[in-house]
């Protein structure tokens, strides 16, 4: 044997073969494969016992349950938010916003974890302890009160009916500032219209029992009231083999509602109210109205000095003229009206516009008048008055909320229009603002004019944001206080818009993602306690739980209520309605409104001036009657702004409040967001052709309020002469999954005040569209 190269090679080859004959190589191969099945960067969720806990989402008013996993090591985690199958309205259904809430809740990168302060000198953000933060805030408030300038405090909140907002109102009242406003909501408009015509604020539509529904521009099947309950009602009409309910939708776009409707009456933008009036006119002319119900009403026939609804409608809303003006075929309008009049349980529905704005009060009054002509008030499948929600008022707040005030700017700054309030503060007339308290609602994004709000924040010396998230409002704040997410803390919400029955929902701490966060209400209570004196007396509760227990006393045992988390009026109120109007009847002519305004004005001349100042175009004759006001945006048309911008609502986006979630972004169709996160706007091909625009072109949509950069999508279902843009996109916060996706509709929306109600509206905005 020779030890040479060849011998060595043979030994080596043998060795290699030998190693392969052992399990080493094969096991290594197997294990490295198993390694790919267990990459350390792929999370492994911990198993555990499953439990369920009920709560009610304050964002949508829907009853949900969280599915909790009780992990031995990781503790209790919420893994799902599902519909609560026991809830009589939701029946287990859920909306995307709620079922994906955990994505925001658990995202450490976007939550406020401790109180934060912006260092005035350096602009740096520094963490504070809670006592420091509360001292800072209460010190600032106390100083303003001491200086005798409590009105320098402005507070903006979300949902005036929530306990948090009630506490906020009490605090502001105790401080002596009238400047509280809330996210504008169609509930206020319906309450005002109801008050003017029926003396009732809590109206609802009995959709589930109706067999004929005509909706005036409100996105019934996109986002209306409790979206789950509305869909359940809709689904009940779609029976087999024949539909059991008929849906007619009046609006300028082939929306989901329009498409799923049995009839889509495509009208010119903003003319829905005029069509309601024309339907009234046709019913009266054809004698198709409920003689008995109308006979029992006030203001139908002329009465003394007051013009009657009948003669006013017949004179001002002739069918041909309205049909032509609204751009709908008269035959269709006529058929719709006749079908409506003949249907057994027909109801006309008004509600928030596509942008989620509060809607137009006179349109609402016209729709209520149409229902009155149909004689469906208090009847199954008609307009109902909700049962009273037996909530105990929390101190002085009761005065502020029970009867929504008319908030027209002409009536002074004592109002509920955050936009008008911000504009007034910006001009410094009658005075400027020193401290801005943002309690939820993310006004810096939701606006309604995001630009105006941001300007206000920049101009205000001390901005405080109470928010669970590092959102757009936190970004402008000098002091950020971490509040709980609704799955983490105490709070409540009341009946959603248009619900036929009263309901109440609690939300309570089910899990804790941010240990430092406090309930927004509790922060207010702590501030009040620190301030002492009047505020401390006005807000005597230990914590929000106690305030909730006090408020909901009449609903039974609080612990039981909290476990169930909701209360719903058992049966709708059918039968005779008590009209709390001056006449004690349904008022086609609103005597209540007339009395209120003439009381303030003093004499008829001043009244006429006041009415004109409130933006009512029809003069004194029309001011107290349901009628149609042309949309303000129409005035801007033609001044280099040839198109009207309207929002596209969807449950895949949101209408303010909480932000859109990552999963919602994920399910956005490419008709809303496309091509690396670009906003998509819809235009009719004919309109686009006139502007030499093609599918996929990038454009700038300009209004006097601001602009949007977007991609054009040609959609046959879009009314010519209009641009439709999704609402709820374009956040600048909430992490990489949500931020910079499209653009914020509220940057371009021009906000005006609704005639008479004075609420902000931003349904239509005149814009120009230019290729970029």
């Amino acid at each position, binding site marked *: 044997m020779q030890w040479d190269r060849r011998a060595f090679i043979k030994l080596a080859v043998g060795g290699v073969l030998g190693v392969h004959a052992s399990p080493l190589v094969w096991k290594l*191969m197997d294990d490295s*494969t198993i*390694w*790919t099945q267990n990459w350390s960067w792929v999370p492994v969720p911990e198993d555990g016992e499953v439990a369920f806990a009920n709560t009610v989402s304050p964002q949508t008013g829907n009853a949900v349950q969280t599915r909790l996993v009780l992990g031995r090591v990781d503790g209790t985690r919420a893994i799902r938010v599902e519909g609560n199958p026991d809830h009589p309205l939701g029946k287990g259904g859920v909306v995307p916003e709620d079922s994906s809430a955990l994505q925001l809740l658990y995202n450490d990168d976007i939550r406020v974890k401790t109180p934060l302060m912006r260092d005035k000198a350096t602009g740096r953000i520094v963490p504070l302890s809670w006592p420091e933060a509360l001292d800072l805030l209460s010190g600032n408030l106390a100083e303003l009160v001491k200086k005798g300038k409590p009105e320098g405090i402005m507070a903006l909140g979300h949902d005036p009916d929530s306990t948090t907002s009630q506490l906020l109102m009490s605090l502001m009242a105790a401080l002596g500032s009238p400047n509280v406003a809330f996210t504008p909501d169609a509930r206020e408009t319906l309450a005002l219209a109801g008050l003017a015509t029926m003396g009732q604020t809590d109206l609802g539509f009995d959709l589930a029992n109706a067999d004929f529904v005509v909706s005036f521009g409100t996105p019934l099947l996109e986002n209306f009231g409790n979206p789950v309950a509305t869909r359940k009602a809709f689904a009940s009409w779609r029976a087999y083999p024949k539909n059991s309910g008929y849906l007619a939708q009046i609006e300028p776009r082939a929306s989901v509602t329009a498409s799923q409707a049995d009839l889509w009456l495509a009208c010119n933008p903003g003319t829905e109210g005029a069509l309601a009036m024309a339907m009234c006119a046709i019913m009266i002319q054809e004698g198709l109205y409920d003689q008995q119900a109308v006979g029992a009403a006030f203001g139908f026939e002329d009465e003394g000095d007051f013009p009657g609804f009948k003669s006013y409608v017949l004179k001002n809303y002739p069918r041909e003229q309205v049909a032509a003006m609204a751009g709908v075929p008269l035959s269709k309008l006529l058929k719709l009206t006749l079908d409506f009049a003949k249907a057994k349980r027909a109801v006309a529905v008004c509600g928030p516009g596509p942008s989620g704005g509060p809607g137009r009060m006179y349109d609402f009054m016209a729709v209520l008048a149409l229902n009155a002509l149909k004689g469906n008030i208090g009847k199954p499948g008609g307009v109902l008055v909700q049962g009273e929600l037996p909530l105990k008022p929390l101190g002085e707040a009761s005065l502020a909320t029970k009867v929504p005030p008319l908030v027209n700017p002409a009536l002074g700054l004592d109002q509920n229009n955050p936009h008008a309030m911000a504009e007034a503060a910006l001009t410094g007339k009658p005075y400027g603002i020193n401290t801005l308290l943002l309690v939820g609602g993310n006004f810096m994004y939701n606006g309604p004019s995001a630009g105006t709000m941001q300007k206000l924040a920049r101009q205000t010396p001390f901005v405080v944001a109470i928010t669970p998230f590092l959102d757009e409002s936190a970004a402008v704040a000098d002091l950020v206080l971490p509040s709980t997410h609704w799955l983490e803390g105490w709070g409540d919400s009341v009946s959603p818009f248009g619900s036929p029955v009263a309901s109440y929902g609690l939300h309570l701490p089910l899990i804790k993602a941010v240990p430092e966060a406090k309930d927004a209400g509790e922060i207010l209570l702590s501030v009040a306690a620190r301030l002492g004196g009047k505020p401390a007396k006005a807000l005597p509760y230990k914590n929000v739980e106690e305030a909730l227990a006090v408020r909901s006393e009449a609903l039974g045992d609080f612990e039981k209520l909290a476990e169930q988390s909701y209360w719903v009026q058992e049966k709708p109120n059918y039968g005779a309605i008590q009209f709390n109007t001056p006449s004690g009847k349904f008022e086609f002519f609103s005597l209540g409104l007339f009395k209120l305004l003439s009381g303030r004005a003093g004499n008829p001349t001043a009244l006429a001036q006041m009415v004109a100042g409130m933006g009512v175009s029809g003069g004194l004759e029309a001011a107290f009657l349901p009628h149609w006001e042309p949309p303000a945006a129409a005035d801007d048309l033609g001044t280099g702004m040839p198109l009207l911008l309207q929002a596209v609502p969807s449950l895949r986006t949101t209408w303010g409040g909480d932000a859109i979630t990552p999963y919602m972004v994920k399910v956005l169709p490419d008709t809303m967001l496309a091509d690396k996160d670009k906003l998509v706007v819809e235009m009719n091909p004919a309109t686009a052709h006139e502007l030499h625009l093609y599918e996929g072109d990038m454009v700038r949509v300009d209004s006097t309020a601001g602009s949007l950069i977007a991609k054009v999508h040609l959609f046959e279902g879009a009314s010519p002469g209009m641009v439709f843009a999704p609402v709820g996109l374009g956040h600048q916060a909430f992490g990489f999954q949500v931020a910079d996706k499209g653009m914020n509709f509220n940057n371009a929306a021009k906000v005006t005040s609704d005639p008479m109600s004075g609420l902000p509206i931003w349904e239509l905005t005149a814009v120009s569209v230019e290729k970029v």
Partner: protein
Amino acid sequence: MRRWFDDLPKYADDSSWHPKGVKRCRPEIFLLWLGLPLTLLAYFTVGAVLCLALGLNQTNMNDYFAFGVWIVVDLAVIALGAGAFFTSFLNYIVGKTELKPIVNAAVLIGFICYVGAILMLGIDIGQPIRGWFGFWHANVHSMLTEVMFCITTYAIVLTIELLPTVLDNKRISRVPEFGTMSHNLHTIMIVFAAAGTFLSFFHQGSLGGMFGVLYARPFAARGGLGIWPWTFFLFIWSAIAAGPSFTTMIVMITEKVSGRKLTTHNVKMLMGKISGYLLVSYMLVKSADTAWWVWVKLPSMGLTMDDMYHNPYGYWLMWFELGLFGWLPALMLLQEKVRESYGWLFLAMLMTCTGVALNRFIFTIQSLALPVLPFEKFYSYLPSWQEWGIASLVLGFGLLVYMLAYRYLPVFPQEPELNDK
């Protein structure tokens, strides 16, 4: 004083490794030539590292174009590499010994194509480390399983078939064991030729079957005529038609680049004739299949031909595949005159190969591009630079192996005699 590099020319002198009786270029020129494949391989390496480390998001493939340029190249080179098995088959089994002068080249090219394809497939799958699941947990119903098994085993067969050529290297053959081995291998080569034919036949078919069995993808699903999936046979047929062309074409290119005659023109003409007759028969069957598909199969799925061709994947693809690069080269190759002319023969063969490669492109990309759901969007696809990098592996690897083989191995037995002067 000797400097360290003074000896380099001596070491670099590799002439003792060159095949007997041939002349090869100087080592430094060869090194320069090597730069080309090495550059391509460097490009490949960049792409491969990116794809393996960051995932297949580095490509432009997506859920609609689940297969991309890699599969196209894979299918094309495997089809073109079919020259190996078919020439071996004709040479060893049918006994067409006239092909002997080109068999080595055919095997070499086949080897390059198959090994290149396997390497590329290793990157194409999302979990390369789990690649062996296809063997260990094989699903015997899957055409892809068949492809994986056959390609791998055939690559091994090709290696064995290539081995004698390697062992016949002037220096290697001096080792007595290798010499014996080479001799023994030569005598049993018919066994491997048979095995290779069997394996190759089936996986060429399986590759076609891969598309044919997609019965819910109307472009790919070809059936009727009593046999399903038809693509099984179409792919074999087209591969054996193009394979000889490709082999000959590469030989012709080598001749032009090296300036040396490598085989007699008769051999090339014979290869061309084989290609031509097979191509004509293939085109007949392919045309019949297309007609059946257009008039029977598609309407049964509620579709028409118009649904199948959207720009950029328009009708032009069909005319190019079936006409310009199908029937035309087929008819050209049938002409003795064409075959006699070096230039025309080359052109016809190039067109043949283009046609078959185009066919593989169409089956991969167009099958996937066509939305089946009537409300689906139509998308098109362009590979990313990383994908091209990986695809250039076949070329880089192929050039490298081919250049080394040409330089050191007796690939062309006729070369010494043809270049005697």
